[in-house]
């Protein structure tokens, strides 16, 4: 099965949030109480019941004009997914489509994925004591459908298809747009399965890491200390056994009465 990519073209996004609503609908996520934070961005951030969100950002172009930037924020579905690396129960897993899905039954609510994620995506739900995030509509794509957000998009800003085709399409679009336009996602964390065509440089966007990567803390923890523990424990067990056979136990017996029966 070929890997799939969801492509999001910011130049075609009108911020209508049909995708945000479709996500809520398909995944049966109720809306929560919200508040006016002085922006159309609503709710203010990702939540355990808001797996994707259109971020609204006002950018001055220097001539007193304001430009509106939209960004669809949700799980990027990294190939080198730090969340899968740290998940102790295997609740977070890679699907055959390359996306990162969640088996809710297995989630133990340890929150280890939260600080591991370079995109700050997973959210904790204290009511269910579980984590929640976009799973690229695994229930849909596994039945040959496109994700709900893609289905709902009226402008063509969202598309879904085979990995190579989507990457090629993104680069072609960037070429067409020119200027600061760029492809975001295929150059780091092994390549993401949500790809952006950004009209501005990545550092212009709020909450978007310029060079996302698996944190060093996760690498030290899972790639160094974890295998070393197994190696050290195994080495010590084998070493003790060999020590017993070759060097032998220490002779702590003596010829005095009390110590006469020395050994075990």
């Amino acid at each position, binding site marked *: 099965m070929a890997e799939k990519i969801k492509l999001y073209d910011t130049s075609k996004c009108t911020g209508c949030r049909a995708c945000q609503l479709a996500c809520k609908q398909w995944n049966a996520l109720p809306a929560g109480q919200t508040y006016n934070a002085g922006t159309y961005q609503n709710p203010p951030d990702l939540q355990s019941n808001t797996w994707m969100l259109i971020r609204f950002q006002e950018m001055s172009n220097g001539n007193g004009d304001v430009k509106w930037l939209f960004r669809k924020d949700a799980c990027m579905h990294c190939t080198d997914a730090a969340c899968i690396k740290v998940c102790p129960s295997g609740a977070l897993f890679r699907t055959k489509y390359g996306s990162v899905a969640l088996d809710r039954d297995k989630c133990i609510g340890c929150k*280890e994925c*939260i600080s591991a994620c370079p995109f700050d995506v997973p959210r904790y739900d204290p009511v269910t004591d579980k984590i929640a995030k976009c799973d690229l509509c695994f229930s849909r794509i596994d039945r040959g459908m496109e994700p709900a957000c893609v289905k709902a998009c009226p402008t063509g800003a969202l598309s879904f298809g085979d990995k190579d085709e989507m990457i090629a399409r993104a680069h072609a679009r960037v070429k067409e747009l020119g200027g600061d336009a760029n492809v975001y996602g295929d150059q780091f964390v092994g390549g993401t399965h949500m790809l952006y065509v950004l009209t501005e440089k990545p550092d212009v966007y709020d909450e978007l890491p310029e060079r996302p990567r698996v944190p060093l803390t*996760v690498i030290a*923890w*899972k790639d160094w*200390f974890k295998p070393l*523990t197994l190696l050290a424990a195994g080495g010590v067990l084998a070493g003790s056994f060999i020590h017993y056979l070759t*060097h032998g136990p*220490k002779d702590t017996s003596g010829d*005095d009465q009390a110590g006469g029966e020395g050994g075990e």
Partner: protein
Amino acid sequence: MIPKKGMIKSTDAFERLVHWWLAITCIILILTGLGMMFHSFNFLGTPLGGLKNLKLVHNFTGLLFAPALFFAILIWWREAGVFKMPEDLEWIKVAGGYLWHVDDVPETGKYNPGQKAFFLAVAIFGILMVASGLIMWFPLSLPSGLVQWMYPLHALGMLVIFPFVLVHIYLGTIGVPGSARAIFTGYVTRSWAEKQCPGWLKEMEEEGRLEIYGEEKEEAAHG
């Protein structure tokens, strides 16, 4: 393992109690920790009704481990927490005679440098385990930049403590016969004490503080 006449008292009841309190909580923590560290050990959660319960057992056992560690440090830091130079260095140079044949192993006090290293590893990394573990329990209430470092720190503690515990169990049982009774009954044979803690034995005898099974304590004290 009932003590015999003439055996020497090496530990008191409180020391033995704290040892086993620390040992049992530590082993539970290691096993439940392994259950969450490796997917291949996830099955360790099954008898507890799932990995979520395993996590709870791990966290609450950690709360029981902390006071045991506190008492352990209080009891043993004087005897096992300070290296005595130069004799300890000489002992380290010959690995205490544990790895190759050594004619004259430098005399040690109650605990040899290997045991001191174990004590220090458990004390230092034990404190770090409790601190990092507590933060990992409530990660959302602290800045993620700090929380991130607690996980590799916790894993480093496991890397140090787990293999050291295995060495400790080996040397406390079949590796050095006669040792285990020190932590079960508290009484060891004189020949064991002469080989394992000669310095301590001499000191206790000189000060007349040695307690011998089957003899009145006062007798030694007055003698």
